[in-house]
């Protein structure tokens, strides 16, 4: 198979429910196009999106195999992890025979269907773990047999939530591919110059001052306290004329009060602005986007920078570390504000490095989140799964 040949894909899905797993598949099918993909699918159950799926590819449903006792027994045996007398017939009728380049599970919940795959010369198996699926899996776990089957059979787990801990299930890290959930906000147009001028005037940003942006909730996990301390460090200890804008200060009145106290006592009044989401345009004023969040799931920590074509600096958290592989972000050790200030200063003093960094951030974001680049990345993962 060359990269120009359509990928012969067998899709296994738990059902055609209107949920993230089905939506994910529909998005991939829409973006891939017929030239790239020759797919067929098997679902354990039907559901409200079955017709939509059948608009893109043939879908066999195990539950539709017939209502006779043999079919019922076959389904029961499959649920129990065994193959009954009619297995070969079912397999043929489901259409899982023939040339297959890769098998794609839309969710770990489709694991029982892996029993339909040939045991010899099995094609590579890639499992998508949609956002929230692992949390759900912890509450409604797969049977031990299905979990073993999933772990034994799967060549790549593609994980949409970067906070998921597949390692906890015993999956080696080299079998995990990080990607993000689809993001329709990518490439949002920036504010017009008049709006930016209005914001600069309202916030009294001095001519020539560098601007750093941060965003997120004001509560502990958002790390706004660390952003304020970073600004203090840059201004008071290093003498830089720098202004900070933090967007996301709509709620959390207690934390806001505490931050305002700190801002006043660090002599940062008028230099650090806590803004509501309505003023998100202020993020576009920034020379750099700084991520001080402690634990916020993707894509929130890096989306603002990627959307605005800005460089990204932050702490080495799970989410950012995975995103910033190959230079798509300048990261320092967690909570090390001194090194963070070093990185910020270095980039503020080097416009070319800043621009190059912004380009890498944008490229990674598109690869992970923006259809159709995200779909291309998925197809590439499927092609190279083994």
């Amino acid at each position: 198979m060359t990269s120009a040949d359509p990928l012969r894909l067998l899709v296994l899905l738990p059902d055609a429910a209107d949920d993230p797993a089905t939506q994910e598949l529909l998005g991939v099918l829409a973006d891939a196009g017929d030239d790239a993909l020759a797919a067929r699918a098997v679902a354990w159950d039907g559901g409200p999106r079955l017709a939509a799926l059948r608009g893109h590819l043939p879908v066999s449903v195990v539950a539709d195999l017939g209502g006779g006792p043999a079919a019922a027994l076959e389904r029961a045996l499959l649920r129990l992890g065994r193959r009954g007398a009619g297995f070969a017939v079912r397999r043929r009728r489901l259409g899982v025979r023939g040339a297959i380049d890769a098998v794609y599970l839309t969710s770990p919940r489709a694991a029982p269907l892996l029993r339909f795959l040939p045991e010899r010369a099995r094609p590579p198996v890639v499992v998508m773990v949609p956002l929230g699926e692992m949390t759900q899996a912890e509450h409604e776990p797969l049977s031990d047999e299905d979990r073993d089957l999933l772990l034994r059979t799967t060549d790549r787990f593609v994980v949409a939530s970067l906070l998921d801990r597949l390692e906890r299930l015993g999956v080696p890290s080299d079998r995990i591919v990080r990607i993000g959930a689809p993001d329709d906000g990518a490439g949002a147009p920036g504010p017009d110059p008049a709006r930016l001028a209005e914001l600069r005037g309202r916030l009294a940003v001095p001519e020539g001052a560098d601007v750093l942006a941060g965003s997120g909730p004001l509560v502990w996990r958002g790390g706004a306290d660390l952003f304020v301390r970073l600004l203090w460090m840059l201004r008071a200890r290093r003498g830089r004329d720098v202004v900070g804008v933090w967007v996301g200060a709509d709620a959390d009145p207690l934390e806001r009060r505490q931050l305002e106290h700190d801002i006043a006592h660090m002599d940062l009044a008028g230099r650090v602005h806590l803004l509501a989401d309505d003023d998100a345009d202020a993020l576009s004023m920034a020379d750099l986007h700084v991520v001080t969040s402690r634990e916020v799931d993707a894509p929130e920590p890096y989306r603002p920078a990627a959307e605005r074509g800005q460089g990204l600096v932050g702490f080495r958290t799970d989410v950012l570390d995975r995103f910033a592989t190959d230079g798509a972000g300048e990261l320092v050790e967690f909570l090390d504000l001194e090194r963070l200030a070093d990185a910020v200063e270095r980039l503020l003093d080097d416009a070319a490095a800043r621009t190059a960094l912004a380009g890498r951030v944008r490229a990674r974001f598109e690869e992970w989140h923006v259809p159709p680049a995200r779909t291309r990345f998925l197809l590439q993962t499927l092609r190279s799964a083994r």
Partner: protein
Amino acid sequence: MTPARVAFVSHNASRSGAPLLLLQLQRWLLDHSDHELVTVLLDGGPLEADFAAVGPVVGPDDLAGLDADLVYLNTVGAAPALAVLPDGPKVVCHVHELDYALTHWIDEADRDRLRHRVDRFLVVSQLVRAALERCVGVDPGRVEVHYGFVDVAAVAAGAPAPAASGTRVIGASGTHVIGASGTTEWRKAPDLFLALAAAVERRRPGGEYPWVGGADRGPEIDGVLADRDRLGLTDSVRFVGEQPDARAWFAAFDVFALVSRDDPFPLTVLEAAALGVPVVAFDSTGAREFLADGCGVVVPYPDVEAMADAVVRLLDDGPGRAALVEAARRRVRADHDLGVAAPRLQAAIESVLAS
């Protein structure tokens, strides 16, 4: 002085600075005056029995009918009592609060009552005086500074054994111990203590960092504990909660770190000084007034790196450390001992009674 009936209003009976100071003052007055003492507790706490041992204790429902010549509000947190107090008694307010509390813990009606109903404000530091003028608009002529105090002899009595936690004894392995103490609320900044520990570890690995008092788990401290674990400092930075004898812990500290963002005049600093433990603090606290002139090290808030440098200097500089410890010990005995400070407070109360 003719004996008077003095009612002390405390916002609660917690084992924290202001209620502890009040208890010491009441015990002093019991021994050194004929005044009749009543305590009004707006809320409860572990010191209730100690207050009851001094004199009658009543609750907020008794405020309206309070029979007293002078009402002594022990903090501005007791200011809501002014709304129901009868008109007759003189009022003194002992202020242990800075901007944050003066702005957010009481409302404008309370601030208005403080301005108009209180005859004399006794404040625990110059920093508090400035905050009271700035945030409440109090006339400076009605404000007197009365620094906090401890019973130095009682604090320093005996040689407390090194504190133990679990199976470990703090500092027993010869490592440096940088300690802190207080509640674990935001104002006391356990987050900055963690940042300090990380900064000291970068300079001098292998230290122990106990925080005595406050919560050892729960929502107030969970975020800091999570940060601590991610920094790999789980074994060295420990929040040990309330301890029956904090002195035993303090005595094991090589350096006492006051990392508070906002602290009017912490008594823990006086206790550390009485025990011969050098203190580093941020300049955002009233402790800077005690630590001035070589009695401790003060760094700008929130310069954790500068504080870590100061800690390491104190660990390394034997003679400098000894001089600082001695200066602090002299100052706490001269100016902040119960026997020195309580008579001044008594005089202030009696001058208001006589006015």
